């Protein structure tokens, strides 16, 4: 069974997408059927991830459960899949987040087939990206992720931002081509495919070294919301009103972050590493800039986008620190971050939908009439900004401590950014709970459904248990 397990983790969501694409339209049962296919596919995938975890020796570091597939003999390329604890943690976080998303997704959205099929293809390819253990398959999945994202933005993006599609695609393509060139050069240098964990030992020299590492750097950075790429990611994310589409677009920076985690720590040559302070400066300026804008911005969705940006950049700074011990801390943080982000996105989407339905123009006092929504939103915003009941709090604490250890000024500026974005979220929460500003009549039937509320509380329970005992799900 373990021989094809990792392959199955990639193929299963894609198989689910194929079933959805070929499902016949029926007025009564069509929507229900495709939702069930999506949910059960994800639940099966989560079970597979947990089963795979059970085969792991979590004490050992390094890639385990390696699977090798012969692809081409001309040129000779074998595809390697493999996982370590960090990548399994990411996989679990992604699949749980999307599982919750599908359970909480409204059954009345437009174009559910395209949305759910794109989602499953995206999950399958993202699983492949995280599980790839050689440079060629790493590139294949990195580039392939563009397809469901472009379909998603085309189908659900704002009409007024249609030119963003072209810009998004071209930026993606630039990053893809840079990575492609670097990978082929590395392939030729070594005269064969290279396992990912040995990519740093190539000993490239001269111009080739500069070109390869800079290409890798810019290809991953093109996925991060860092200046000057922050504008297009912001436009895409804030233009996607569907919460599931928003969550998927919010995972674009994870692709870049994961690339850095695989290629960068302790492997970047000294000649490139001297530019690290410049890069850190750009990161911190972007963090502060976006955090300050979110304080002023009225749109709750933009505040959530600012939160995601600041935290991704926090993890990125953590990756670039000259210490190899932060990888698992970042992994645990991202695990809880993904779940929190998904839940917040759906709650905000629910609030916006109710506002539109009841023709309300302001968020003020809205949560007074939505007790379940109020509890969920409060708890998850507190978890997002660092409530000490989630692994996000504890692991971010360690990451920030290391940043302070490395550079005091950098640490202070990072803390400031986190503070601003926390204030932005809390300010919005306060406004929505402030009964004194309520002027409109009480809206009816606006609260979260019981199913969703229970799903959110289960997520909170998962986060709490993960805080108490990380890897509690490993049998």
């Amino acid at each position: 069974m373990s021989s094809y397990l990792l392959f199955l983790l990639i193929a299963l969501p894609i198989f689910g997408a194929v079933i959805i694409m070929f499902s016949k339209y029926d007025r009564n049962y069509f929507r229900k059927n495709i939702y069930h296919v999506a949910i059960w596919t994800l639940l099966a995938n989560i079970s597979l991830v947990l089963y795979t975890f059970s085969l792991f020796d979590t004490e050992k570091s390094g890639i385990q459960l390696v699977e090798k597939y012969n692809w081409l003999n001309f040129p000779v390329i074998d595809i390697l899949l493999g996982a370590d604890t960090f990548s399994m943690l990411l996989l679990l976080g992604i699949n749980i987040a999307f599982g919750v998303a599908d359970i909480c997704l409204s059954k009345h959205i437009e174009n559910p087939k395209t949305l759910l099929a794109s989602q499953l293809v995206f999950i399958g390819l993202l699983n492949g990206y995280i599980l790839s253990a050689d440079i060629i398959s790493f590139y294949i999945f990195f580039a392939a992720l563009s397809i469901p994202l472009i379909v998603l933005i085309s189908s659900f993006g704002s009409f007024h931002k249609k030119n963003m599609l072209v810009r998004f695609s071209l930026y993606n393509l630039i990053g893809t081509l840079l990575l492609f060139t670097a990978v082929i050069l590395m392939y030729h240098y070594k005269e064969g495919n290279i396992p990912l964990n040995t990519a740093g030992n190539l000993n490239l020299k001269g111009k080739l070294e500069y070109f390869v590492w800079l290409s890798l750097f810019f290809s991953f950075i093109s996925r991060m919301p860092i200046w000057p790429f922050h504008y297009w990611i912001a436009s895409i994310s804030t233009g996607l009103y569907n919460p599931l589409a928003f969550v998927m677009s919010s995972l674009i920076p994870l692709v870049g972050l994961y690339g850095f985690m695989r290629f960068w720590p302790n492997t970047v040559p000294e000649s490139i590493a001297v530019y690290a302070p410049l890069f850190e400066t750009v990161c911190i300026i972007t963090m502060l800039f976006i955090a300050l804008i979110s304080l002023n911005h009225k749109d709750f969705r933009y505040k959530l986008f600012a939160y995601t940006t600041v935290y991704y950049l926090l993890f990125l700074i953590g990756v670039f620190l000259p210490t190899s011990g932060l990888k698992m801390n970042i992994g645990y943080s991202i695990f809880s971050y993904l779940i929190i982000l998904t839940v917040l996105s759906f709650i905000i989407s629910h609030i916006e939908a109710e506002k539109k339905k009841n023709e309300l123009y302001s968020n003020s006092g809205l949560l007074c009439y939505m007790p379940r929504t109020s509890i969920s939103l409060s708890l998850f915003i507190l978890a997002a900004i660092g409530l000490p009941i989630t692994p996000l709090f504890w692991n971010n604490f360690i990451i920030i401590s290391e940043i302070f250890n490395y550079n005091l000024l950098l640490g202070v500026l990072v803390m400031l950014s986190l503070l601003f974005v926390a204030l932005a979220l809390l300010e919005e929460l306060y406004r929505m709970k402030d009964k004194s500003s309520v002027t409109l009549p009480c809206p009816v039937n606006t609260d979260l459904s019981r199913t969703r509320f229970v799903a959110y509380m289960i997520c909170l329970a998962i986060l709490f248990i993960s805080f108490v005992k990380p890897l509690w799900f490993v049998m």
Partner: protein
Amino acid sequence: MLDKIISILPEIPLLCGMVHLCILYLLSNEKAKTYAATARFWLLVSVFLTTVCYYRGTDTISAAANSYTLLFILCANIALYIIMILSATWFSSLKRTGGRYYILLLLSSGSINMMLNTENFCVYGFCFAFLTVIGGALYGIHTSQQQINLKKYIITSALVLVILAIGLIYVGQIIGAENLTTEQMQLFLRAYSRKLSTILFVISSIVPLLYALGIFPFHIMAEEKACCSILPVSHYFMLFLPIVYWGCLIEINQTVYPVYGEIWKKIYQALALISVIWGAIGANTRKNLHGVYAYSSIYHFGIILFLISLGQERAIFAGFIYLLCYLLVMANLYAIFYNLKTHGQYISDIASLSGLAQTRSYTTGALMISLFSLIGVPPLIGFLGQMNMADELLGNANYIAVGIIFAALLILSKAYLDIMKVIYFAPKTKSFDSENKSILFYTSINTVAIMTFAFNPFNMIEKIKDMFYVIFL
């Protein structure tokens, strides 16, 4: 005697097919599907006999028959078969029989058999001229709404044929027409390689192929053939003929012109890179889908020419793989055309695609996958071609070429993305006619092929390589 009969066996069904089509016409049969089915049947018989009786004859027509030529003949005839299936719907919808069209297609099939299998340059030149005449006859088939520039086609083709004829006559006078075989040509070129007239002859034999393939600066008719002709004819020009001409170009370069290796390399590379840039920029200036695809083909053919120019076996094979990948996608794009109709009129303007995503999800999906494949996004088939290309170019340290090709790809991608933008974001202005189920079925199969063939099922690439590498022996 038996040798001669076996060597012309594949052409006999084609002849029977033409006679059968003429009989149908005389019997005033009105159904396009009958003509198409008849043509397809005889083509299949011909393909079967080509494969079974594949035979290296001693006569001048089939002396060069080997697995390399068989590979190209099979690919070309499969493309022709697909064209015949899809074109039947076009002719049916316009209540035309397409008899002339199918007869000319069968004639083309016979010509390419001879053109690829022969080792005599006179026969090759005659077949090339014949294919050009067939192309003109097909180009002349038009609807009342179309304006075609047949005069331009005739003038440019005549010029090209005159250039070819002058070259062949010049060499024929020196070594004799019956000696215009590959072997004799090699000896002749080695002996007279420095003479200006010999160099001009070599140019005269290559230029017609570059013109037929639309390589810059010989791309004069490339867009007209795609845009101004009727859809089945455009399909023929864009899918069938390139396979044949690339087969000839690779064969001629390998067997006859290695003596000019280094000079040709530089000329080819310059033309290739300019084609790449020209194609990418040109595609962005076109408002018509056929025009975009025509310029896109100039870009992709530029890359194939560059790979061939490297002269190494691996690079030339990489060029062939790139060609196959490109043609598979082009087959899908043209199949989609047959299902794009509004109020009975076939659509080719990009602006007319507005709202397609809202009502035609499968067609939109197939179109998107094809465009992504042309960009080279994995795991689609286009990525396989792109990977082989980059592998060879970077392996040969052609870094500047790679930079130019990828920069041009970004420019070309903008043209494809503008199409996607119209499909998804432009407000729907007209309703589309209901889709033909059989074309939809074919499009689905082709789309699945684009998505899965990059995984090299059944070790296809190795089998193709075994057939292709015969040319290097």
